[in-house]
């Protein structure tokens, strides 16, 4: 299958790649339609999601297969080339602020408000794997270990995480394996970006997500992670239980429980976690050029969402944009362009799972009530454990909105096997009423002011 993509190695549905693409396009005055890869079109989405369920499931598998790099090309995977690709998504600047570090959708909206480009620490590279069974964790670890070690050896500036999550990523795992490259050094491309495009006296905001996970080393700078941050708790991946057995049975798996390899250490979570090794490099560079270094530390990637939502509200009020509308986005179905054009307050959910639901609930319980609440949900291709049904979401937002609550851009019949999901969210955002010109960017000082005056205490987030 030919691979249609702009960069040789990155994976189109990866959170980091979508942060970079969305911001790069925002600075050009464009939206993030179809993950910045294809058109956003409701009709096309309907067409794609019209076949029967089994075919749609296959569609997800095929998507994985098309994103995977053939194994013989694994030796060409070059983290520096990916970094260069990232820096090419942004203009020449100079930028007053650059955001670097862990991926989070709330961080995306913060960066968008600041007009700041984002340099991800972690990027995803997928390699083809038609052989291992999604539920055979040990088998997958052993089968991919030589490839993981090869990538780690060829890229001394990153550590490589082979991430294997049969709960959330099941259809993808049938055709590919996730390799997450986490930078331990800035590398030449990022260094040059900060040297050349960050304005003198500018600020580097370092997003640090403290989430760690049980992992197992398979070589030098090469790790295996079973499970991932999602609807299944970390312990459940190892201790199993009735819910997992039910899930495996429903999926037609020959197994009734998972037997992951014995972990040997807790390391930064493969997708979202921050590896402090990179911080040393950033600090050195900031000192050398006299940049201000501001760390934004959170326990979980989603912890930032409440702060960023409140910050938007505060900002919109200050510049005279009505601030009573909330747009809840999930995973990579975000669009900073439309958030700013519509003047909606963004609240980002990491996924469509129970923990995300609870976070939104907590936020809405304590926040000043919103007039309108819109919610969009990502479709990952199966009812993985922890996926919250649409009805429950609807009830939640209905009970909290003062005037109007609606789930938008979701094919309710197909969800969560909606193959057209990534083409559906942007037209839905675009269709919302009221538009404003994109406001001039905020500054880092504004965040300071906001936090000083905020009555709320964001316990799980630190701005230092």
């Amino acid at each position, binding site marked *: 299958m030919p691979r249609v993509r702009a960069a040789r190695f990155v994976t189109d549905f990866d959170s980091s790649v979508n942060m970079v693409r969305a911001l790069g396009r925002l600075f050009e005055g464009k939206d993030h339609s179809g993950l910045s890869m294809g058109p956003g079109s409701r009709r096309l989405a309907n067409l794609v999601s019209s076949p029967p369920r089994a075919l749609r499931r296959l569609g997800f598998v095929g998507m994985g297969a098309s994103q995977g790099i*053939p194994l013989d090309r*694994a030796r060409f995977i070059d983290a520096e080339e990916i970094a260069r690709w990232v820096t090419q998504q942004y203009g020449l600047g100079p930028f007053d602020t650059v955001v670097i570090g862990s991926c989070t959708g709330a961080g995306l909206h913060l960066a968008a408000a600041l007009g700041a480009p984002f340099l991800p620490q972690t990027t995803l590279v997928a390699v083809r794997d038609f052989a291992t069974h999604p539920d055979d964790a040990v088998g997958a670890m*052993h089968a991919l270990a*030589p490839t993981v070690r090869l990538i780690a050896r060829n890229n001394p500036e990153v550590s490589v995480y082979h991430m294997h999550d049969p709960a959330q990523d099941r259809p993808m795992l049938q055709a590919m394996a996730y390799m997450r490259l986490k930078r331990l050094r800035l590398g030449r491309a990022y260094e040059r970006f900060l040297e050349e495009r960050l304005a003198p006296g500018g600020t580097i905001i370092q997003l640090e997500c403290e989430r760690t996970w049980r992992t197992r080393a398979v070589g030098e700078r090469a790790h295996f992670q079973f499970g991932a941050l999602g609807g299944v708790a970390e312990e459940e991946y190892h201790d199993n239980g009735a819910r997992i057995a039910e899930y495996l049975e429903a999926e037609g798996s020959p197994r009734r429980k998972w037997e992951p390899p014995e972990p040997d250490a807790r390391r930064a979570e493969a997708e979202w976690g921050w590896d402090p090794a990179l911080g040393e490099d950033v600090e050195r560079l900031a000192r050398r050029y006299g940049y201000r270094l501001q760390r934004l530390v959170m326990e979980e990637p989603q912890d930032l969402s409440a702060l960023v939502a409140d910050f938007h509200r505060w900002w919109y009020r200050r510049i005279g944009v009505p601030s009573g509308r909330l747009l809840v986005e999930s995973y990579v179905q975000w669009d900073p362009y439309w958030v700013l054009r519509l003047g909606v307050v963004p609240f980002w959910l990491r996924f469509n799972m129970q923990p995300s639901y609870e976070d939104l609930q907590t936020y809405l319980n304590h926040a000043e009530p919103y007039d309108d609440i819109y919610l969009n949900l990502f479709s990952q291709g199966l009812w993985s454990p922890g996926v919250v049904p649409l009805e429950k979401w609807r009830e939640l937002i209905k009970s909290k909105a003062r005037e109007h609550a609606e789930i938008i851009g979701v094919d309710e019949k197909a969800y969560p096997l909606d193959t057209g999901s990534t083409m559906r969210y942007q037209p839905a955002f675009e269709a919302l009423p009221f538009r404003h010109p994109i406001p001039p960017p905020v500054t880092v000082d504004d965040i300071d002011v906001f936090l000083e005056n905020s009555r709320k205490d964001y316990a799980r987030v630190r701005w230092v």
Partner: protein
Amino acid sequence: MRVKDSIVVVTGASSGIGRATALAFAGGRAAVVLAARREQALDEVARECEAAGGQALAVPTDVTDPKAVDELARRAVERFGRIDVWVNNAALTLFAPFLDAPLEDFRRVLDVNVMGYVHGARAALPQMKEQGAGAIVNVSSIAGVVPQPYTHAYCMSKAAIRAFSASLRQELMLEGSPSRNIKVVSVLPGTIDTPFFDYTANYTGREAKAMPPVYSPERVARTIVNLVRVPRREVTVGPMARNLAMQAKMTPGLVEKMMALQVDKTHLSRTKPAPATEGNLHEPASGSGSVHGRWNGKRRTAIRRAMSGTALAGVVTVVRRRRR
């Protein structure tokens, strides 16, 4: 040499080419002495040989042990009184990037594939000289002519076997009669549909596959039996192997490059990862062995033939029409 009633020793007889060869000789009413590491598999082959019409003797042997190989020869003579044909066939391979190949694995491949053959020839020759006749068949590979990447030890060993055969042949020629009547021949098969690739040591991270075109082991066995009837120095098996050997003489650089790309795309899987394993190098594979692998050699050959037949018929029709 007549195959009927001859005494044939086959090493590596538990599976693949060795097993097919033993069965072919047995079918020609020869007596076969079967050697391999796996006793259980050998017993099964012996039963099959007897069913095919020949006598059989199973002698579990590790060919890297010279004493064991001498014992094999001794048992063959003890039971059948002589050795007419000795088929050196037991071989292993190892897929690995050069620096990732454990040295002991590398050495083991050379030990089995080269020294195993040397031990065999040293055990068989005294008996054959005494008889004043005999044939030593060394199964090499087309990889000994056109080497492949990631299988250094294997390709080295297969080239070494060709050289070994030639050197021994020359010596016997110089010695004159009766040693002249002892024939030393090399067989160069292409890719053969055997379980060879399923148990191979592999450190590439990619599953090893049989590289097309794949031929059936029976085809090699037939070639070996015919070689014993009418000895020739060196014989390739399968048109692909013959073409490759010829091309390698004409455009060696080009063939070398093409082979590298071919192996990278089709010999190692691009979609199926594989764990690092030492395979059957140090411990034999479990089970009772089999002649065929999972590569459908026979069916593939039939399809290829049907297709080339159709193509040929097509060409003939076109040419005829033009002439009219």
